[in-house]
């Protein structure tokens, strides 16, 4: 049987050789690897994601937390103000490391921080990425003491763990440590907290999210902060509008808890970021 078929195979092979060019080219294994990206934005509301900018990119941020409650009288959902405002500029030194210098008008707090993306692993069900963030803050508008007083300086460190399930549901936990949680306390306070957030990407442009910070030990204001909101992502911009009980923007301030209770005194806030390249 094999012998009978064999000549036939040869004829077939020869006719194929005559019929079309015999190309030797073969595709090599593709070498271009894309970095793993989970969350789209560099932060959810106040808490960071493990994402960083691309090397050489800048990002400008302007954010507001309106102080009146959204159901207050004659304040137009709170946007009549007053408001805490943060302006900041971030810059990526490498694809994994970015620095961010910002200022909030709450105690005229100047904040400098570094985020470094440590590790990531792609996986069809549970991709993971880990980053660390550390920073220092200086409150320059203080009562009854000189602004150069060392008590006005605060430090914080955060570990960031992210996953993105089915490219739709991003989940993050951010254990955080804050040193000198309350700048007016006689004895230096510190706080361990567990930040967490979830973000659901509904379309390529629109997502919703919730974020909270639970103080595990150490000093805290009256309540744990909670925020709920929507995000619109357009090219180089992120527009986030949310409601929450915290009025603070800089990490050394919001890590210390919120003054109001979510639900009974809820405020409006927004973050706008814009990527800049030169």
């Amino acid at each position, binding site marked *: 049987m094999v012998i009978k078929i064999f000549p036939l195979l*040869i004829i077939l092979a020869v006719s194929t050789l005559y019929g079309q*060019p015999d190309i030797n*080219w073969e595709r*090599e294994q*593709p070498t*271009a690897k*894309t970095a793993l990206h989970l969350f789209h934005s560099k932060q959810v509301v106040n808490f960071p994601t493990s994402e960083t900018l691309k090397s050489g990119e800048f990002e400008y941020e302007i954010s507001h937390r309106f102080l009146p409650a959204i159901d207050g009288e004659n304040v137009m959902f709170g946007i009549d103000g007053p408001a805490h405002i943060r302006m900041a500029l971030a810059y990526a030194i490498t694809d994994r490391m970015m620095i961010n210098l910002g200022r909030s008008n709450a105690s005229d707090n100047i904040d400098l921080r570094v985020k470094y993306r440590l590790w990531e692993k792609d996986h069809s069900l549970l991709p993971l990425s880990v980053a660390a963030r550390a920073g220092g803050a200086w409150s320059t508008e203080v009562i009854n003491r000189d602004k150069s007083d060392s008590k006005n300086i605060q430090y914080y460190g955060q570990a960031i763990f992210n996953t993105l399930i089915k490219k739709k549901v991003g989940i993050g936990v951010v254990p955080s440590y804050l040193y000198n949680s309350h700048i007016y306390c006689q004895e230096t306070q510190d706080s361990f907290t567990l930040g967490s957030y979830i973000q659901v990407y509904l379309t390529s442009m629109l997502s919703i999210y919730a974020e909270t910070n639970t103080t595990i030990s150490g000093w805290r204001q009256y309540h744990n902060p909670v925020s709920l909101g929507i995000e619109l992502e357009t090219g*180089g911009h992120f527009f986030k509008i949310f409601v929450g009980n915290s009025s603070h923007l800089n990490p050394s301030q919001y890590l210390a808890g919120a003054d109001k209770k979510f639900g009974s005194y809820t405020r409006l806030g927004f973050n706008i970021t814009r990527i800049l390249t030169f």
Partner: protein
Amino acid sequence: MRSIILSLILALVPVLHLAAEEFHVDKDRDNKVKFISDAPIEEFEGVTDYIDGYVYYEGGDLTNSSALYFEVDLNSIDTGIGLRNRHMRENYLETDKKNYRFTHYNGKIIEATPSGEGTYDVVTEGNLFIHGQTNKVQIRGTMHQENSHYHIHAEFEVKLSDYKIKIPSVMFYKIDENMQLILDFYVKEHQE
């Protein structure tokens, strides 16, 4: 007996292809594939050096039994902004879909007119595959021979809607419906 037939055939193979010339993309050279989006307010471009493929012809004639195939890894395109790269990959080119990662052009040279020393103006015809859609197109370019290399240059336009690539109009960066493509790369003779 069988082994004799086989060796005869094997001996014939090189004869059959004596005049065949095959050139592969030379990855050591400075290859460039670029698209330019020239929308009214904002112009931007995406660049990659990741092009691979071949040109084949017989008997020293570019149009004789010619075949060509080139592919570009869309995941490797850099537009200069990380987030825009991601949007391009995930939302518009959808490179994680099966077979969408590589765009390819599969065709042949139908005309080759000498236009200078070792230079030919060529017209190619073939199938251009982008984003799951295949369209029959003609692409013009030049091929300049330098020893065992050809320097290939081609410029053409791709209309995004021909390939069902949808860009939401609310996006803050404007994208031109007609993408201008510039290919500039080298192929070198393949030695077996």
